[in-house]
């Protein structure tokens, strides 16, 4: 395996009395999409901005593509593409002019046409930035981050505030970046986004990384229960007690014509449920097994929900 593209050791940042980032250590491998997941105020953006050379760490170290962020922040910025949360544009420049301007800031000509094509902005190239929709602006922000063809991209909450379709659209764009061999580090507070996009996820809370692994491994380790959901055909007045006694079942809930069994071993529970179905004791029209999500992982690790 090649060297990690980002190496972070015990990184710290304090704002007054608030420890925004409290000793964070991780590595990011070349070519992966690395997610930092956590609620607002967890220290995700501060961590990212230290790696981008925009904020000076109070302690610890970080190497980005071999460059020390404390020693040469501008050198770091030349090697990375950055999409900042909520950063504005020059409103009355066109999309194409914006790319040319930012390419000039990187000291190179803009591959404008190709970039606009890739980010589905070709037909908007002569439109003022001010007239773009939220999704188009985010795609432009990513285009701006790509003008100098960097191997590593930082995306800070790229899909926040977008409608579901624009979000899916942007997910495709980000997956394309990985396909091109780029490394992407993104923050998000949407667990489904982290689950869908990220090869590995660091879960942050109160300035610390509380867990770091692939989404699947995180779920296996920290939220080992699955849910077996049964769409019941008719009322089953007194069947809850026997259901709760089935192997591996922890909890039984009823909602929306469904019976939901929380289980530590979905295979065993499904076999037991199928046995009941065969002998006619329990009638149901559908059976679904739902895996736990990163939301459950977060709940398990912190005792709180992500968006509280």
């Amino acid at each position, binding site marked *: 395996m090649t060297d990690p593209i980002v190496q972070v050791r015990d990184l710290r940042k304090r704002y007054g009395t608030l420890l925004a980032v409290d000793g964070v250590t991780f590595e990011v491998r070349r070519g992966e999409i690395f997610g930092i997941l956590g609620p607002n105020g967890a220290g995700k953006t501060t961590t990212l901005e230290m790696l*981008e050379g*925009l904020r000076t760490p109070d302690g610890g170290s970080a190497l980005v593509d071999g460059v020390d962020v404390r020693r040469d922040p*501008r*050198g770091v*910025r*030349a090697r990375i593409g*950055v999409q*900042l949360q*909520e*950063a*504005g*544009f*020059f*409103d*009355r*420049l066109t999309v194409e*002019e914006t790319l*040319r*301007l*930012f390419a*000039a*800031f*990187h*000291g190179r000509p803009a591959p404008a046409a190709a970039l606009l094509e890739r980010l589905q902005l070709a037909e908007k190239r002569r439109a*003022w930035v001010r007239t773009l929709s939220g999704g188009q602006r985010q795609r432009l922000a990513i285009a*701006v981050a790509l003008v100098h063809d960097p191997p590593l991209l930082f995306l800070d909450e790229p899909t926040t505030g977008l409608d579901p379709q624009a979000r899916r659209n942007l997910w495709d764009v980000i997956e394309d970046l990985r396909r091109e061999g780029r490394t992407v580090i993104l923050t998000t507070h949407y667990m489904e986004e982290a689950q869908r996009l990220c090869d590995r996820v660091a879960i942050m809370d109160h300035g610390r990384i509380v867990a770091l692994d692939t989404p699947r491994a995180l779920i296996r380790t920290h939220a080992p229960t699955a849910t077996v959901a049964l769409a019941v055909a008719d009322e089953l007045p007194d069947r809850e007690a026997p259901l709760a006694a089935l192997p591996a079942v922890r909890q039984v809930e009823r909602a929306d014509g469904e019976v939901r069994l929380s289980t530590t071993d979905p295979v065993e529970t499904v076999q037991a449920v199928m046995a009941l179905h065969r002998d006619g004791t329990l009638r149901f029209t559908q059976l679904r097994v739902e895996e736990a999500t990163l939301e459950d992982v977060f709940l398990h690790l912190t005792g709180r929900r992500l968006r509280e």
Partner: protein
Amino acid sequence: MRAFGLTVLLFFKHYFRDRTSVFWGLLFPLILMSLIGVAFGRGESVTFTVGFVRGTGPLAEGLRRGLAEVPVLRVVDEADEATALEALRRGRRILVVVPPDVAGRSGPAGTAGAVGNTGPVGTLRVYFDQARLQDARTALLILDRFVAEANLRLTGTAPLLRLEAAPVAGARRLRFFDFLLPGILALTVMNSGLQGTSWVVTEYRQRLVLKRVLATPVHPALFLGGLVARYAATNLVQLAVIALVAVWLFRAVIVGNLLVLAGLAVLGTLVFVGMGLAVSTVSRTPEAANLLGSLLGFPMMFLAGTFWPREFMPAAIQPLISALPLTPLVEAMRGVAARGDALTPYLPGLLYLAGWGVVAFLLAGWRFRWE
């Protein structure tokens, strides 16, 4: 260098696409110029309307004829003192002169102040308009000079010294708009920096546009230099349009070298954009920056000799006027534009102006924050 050129070009476009700003940036100075021109610039040059209460003796008649010959005085005959004072109170006269033979018969009356000149011949009483103290003072000075001359003649003393005044704009008489236009141009340069730059940069900071720029490896000098250069360029365009309108509409005349004038405008732009940047570093919001910019700009707008000669201001604030950075710019631009002066006598003032620019940029550089 190519990057710098592109930056300036795009900033330039960005400005000119803001039609409202461009429109007001041109219209405001022009409105100001026409209002001030209408208020103060009637006629070829400054005249003071003086009421003269009709007397009976030959002395009164002689004084009246003498006063009428003074170029800047317009003498209006008054039937009696009461009607003359009424006209003074309504602001139709700047002074009311009462000849000795009438003055001897009546005492000082009314609310207007009075000065007297007692002598063997008689008292020439003068009432002046306290509401227009500056003009009144100037008119009184002229009158005082006139009385001194009259005294010399009456006593038959030969004058030892004679004053010979030469017109200052060569063969051409300086019209009010010729005087006003350079002041308006200098004012426009100041406003673009103090109000324009401070607002724009603070807004870019608040909207995290500056942060987005910071996220690139661009050197701050390229970005800020590009911004300064675009202000220099837009100011030159703006000044050219204002000057053209003034020449075409108000028949203002620029006698000096246009390139020198443009050079002065660029120097002024650098200084006041620097001050605008400094203002932006201590302002959280564009509104706050605007307020602070106005606070600095307004006194200069009215004191620095922009609209009327600084000599009209009380002697007490003359040192303050000399200290304002706009004053040397107004004086140099006026000297070049209206009188065709060489730059040499203005160099110390311009150096002082440049000093302000250096201090402003140091302050801005020290305090500048990208977010």
